[in-house]
């Protein structure tokens, strides 16, 4: 590697980490409140498309972000209705939702492409970007600290965590578990959608079918590795970003070796972190639907 490789390496790391951070934070938020957020992948994908369409049809990055947030809120409400209000199995619903989202986004993307060919082309670079870093990066780091403070230092944070640990105890303490979980999941989905927007608006400026390609699941793993602590989850996202950045640099440096070995780096790194992180203690009541008799 030549001189001055460090700065580009860090930039590449942060670029890859940013969308993951939003999604990992959304998983932390939802699961701290006791709802498994497998649907993060699907919401991220929908948010990615909504952001791009917002930019193409209304011509402004920030309108795109708002549109993405709106779609996230709507999908979050839908997920909340199914998994919290009804309630249905959270894992099954999440998986089905992801398949559903993949189909619907591909379909809408094609409809949009017929209406306006510009959705196929690159959208403008997001205003406020420096060195290939979008304002999303700053927002992600600010949100991380805010989320940590909110979760572990505030009254509402304590109430939310109580709900994730023991919904029945939280209810006995006077929290309306169903409504609150629905609101939290809706907010979390908006965050996931923002992760998608960070990918399309803030990074690659384009959309293809299934552009997220499992990044939502990696965020899920990051939340796990980070033991549902926003700071650690973000650290895990950055580590994965670094792994991805490293993979290509290693390929470039290591002439003659099969590139597939290097392309495995981020995944091996993730596995390693999961193994080393050991058995993180999940919020005790996560995944268990709350039913008031």
């Amino acid at each position, binding site marked *: 590697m030549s001189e001055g490789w460090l700065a580009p390496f860090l930039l590449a790391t942060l670029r890859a980490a940013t969308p993951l951070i939003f999604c990992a934070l959304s998983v932390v938020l939802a699961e701290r409140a006791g709802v498994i957020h497998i649907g993060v992948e699907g919401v991220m994908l929908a948010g990615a498309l909504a952001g791009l369409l917002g930019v193409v049809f209304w011509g402004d990055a920030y309108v795109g972000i708002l549109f993405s947030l709106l779609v996230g809120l709507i999908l979050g409400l839908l997920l909340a209705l199914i998994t919290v209000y009804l309630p249905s199995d959270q894992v099954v619903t999440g998986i089905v939702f992801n398949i559903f989202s993949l189909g619907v986004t591909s379909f809408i993307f094609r409809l949009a492409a017929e209406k306006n060919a510009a959705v196929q082309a690159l959208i403008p670079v997001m205003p406020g970007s420096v060195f290939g870093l979008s304002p999303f990066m700053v927002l992600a780091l600010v949100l991380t600290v805010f989320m940590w403070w909110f979760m572990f230092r*505030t009254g*509402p944070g*304590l109430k939310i965590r109580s709900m994730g640990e023991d919904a029945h105890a939280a209810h006995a303490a006077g929290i*309306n578990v169903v409504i609150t979980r629905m609101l939290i999941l809706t907010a979390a989905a908006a965050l996931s959608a923002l992760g998608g927007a960070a990918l399309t608006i803030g990074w690659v400026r384009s959309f293809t079918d299934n552009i997220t390609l499992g990044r939502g699941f990696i965020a899920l793993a990051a939340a796990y590795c980070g033991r549902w602590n926003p700071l650690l989850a973000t650290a895990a996202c950055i580590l994965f970003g670094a792994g991805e950045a490293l993979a290509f640099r290693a390929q470039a440096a290591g002439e003659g070796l099969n590139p597939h070995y290097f392309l495995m780096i981020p995944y091996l790194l993730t596995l390693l972190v999961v193994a080393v992180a050991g058995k993180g*203690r999940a919020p005790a009541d996560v995944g268990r639907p709350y039913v*008031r008799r």
Partner: protein
Amino acid sequence: MHDIISQTGLSKDAAASSCAVEMTGISKSFGDVRALDDIAFSLQAGEVRALVGENGAGKTTLMNILYGIYAADEGVIRLGGREIPHSWSPREAIRAGIGMIHQHFALISNHTVLENIVMPLLKWREISPSWKSHAKRVSEICREYHFQIDLQSRVEDLSMGERQQVEIVKALYQGAKVLILDEPTSVLTPQQTEALFRFLLILKKRGHSVVLVTHKLDETMQISDRITVLRGGKLIGTIEREQANPQIIARMMIERDWIARLKVAPLPDSAAVVLKVRNLSLNNEQGIRVLDDLSFHVRAGEIVGVAGVAGNGQVELSDALVGLRRVQQGAVEIEGINSTRHTVLQRRKAGLVFIPEDRHHRGVVLDMDIAENIVLNTISEKPYSRYGVLRSQVITDCAEEAISAYSIKTPGCRVPVGNLSGGNQQKIVMARALLREPRIIIACQPTRGLDFGATEYVRKKLLECAQRGIGILLISSDLDEILELSHRILVMFSGKIVSDLPVDRVNLDQLGLLMAGHGRNNQLD
């Protein structure tokens, strides 16, 4: 304990004041089951009320309705004369001064004591709670009632007695005027129980009302001013303590007279040892020694009771004996054969069967039907299957037989076990254990959560087994049960056996002290 009783007695002034709580015409159904039927219940300020009844009588359900956890199908609740709004929830109940302490504590075990106590009071907009002033006020309450709890420790590190204190402080901190305690003594030692009752009397003196939900008659007589009896979801009546005695209450509860205590038959000296445990030690997942050098034996036809407060190694002991956990040291011999390294299946074939403590998770498969549950252990053996294929008719016949032999109340043998009551589920566990005549039964909390009738049935069955020459290790936190059934009593504390005495040489006070960790070693033979 007698001095406590002398302090009770409802002051006439308090009785004359307005009702703190008045519930009328309360009905509630869960699916097809009518849990409560037109119940009236009223409570005065400064009163200790016992709410008694068998399991499933509807005591807890009634209190859950008052506390807003369930919504009543019909009926009116008035607090201080004012009808409660339609949207009644724990939140409103707390605000109205009602505090409830459930049998299973509503504490977040991962959070600190202070967080648990303060959390219900926090408002959603309270971004930055003033923890210091909360801590100060909570400490004051603890001092006032002589509770010693470290506010910064995590609830998961506390004993059950301490957790109950946290629950009480939590309710008081929320301003509870009416305190509902659901089976509060089931996790306490006799000494802790006495302390709790002393505290309740202080509370009463300060004008609080207390509802004690219980099925233990002694407690009822000891502390309450009035006693309300429920049976099968119906109100049987409310009587003053002065007019009550255990026989009257028992008759109200169970529709028949107080049944004489069962008596275990004496054991012949020649009985052979069927289970021998030598120097057994076991570390748990965290590497903490939970069984420490245990040695004892069970003879044929002998019932050996293991007493102790829950969490002192009883679960680990039964797991180790059954083969669910690997021990670090020591040996387990079944009828003289060293079985320390044997699997669960090998031990079962050697004649050791298990009545597990956690009925729902280990005892029965709730979604499977009765017949399947009964043959679960022997399902791969003849005659229940042939060449690996189940023989449905044989299994059904076997189940029908068990249903009539154990008088299991069910519409048929192909009903999911989850639909049955706890007592009937336990009968299925027993039927399965006794399907092939065993040599040893490890029975863990065999009557926990069962109602009076079912409890008696299970105990009789165990005595029958002993008479047939089966050795029984009875692990129970119900001292009455242990005293009633056992030939010999072991007391476990902190993973050790601190006492091993024949039943005629122990007394209750001594047992209580041993269970609380006092006087260890000096009682050992």
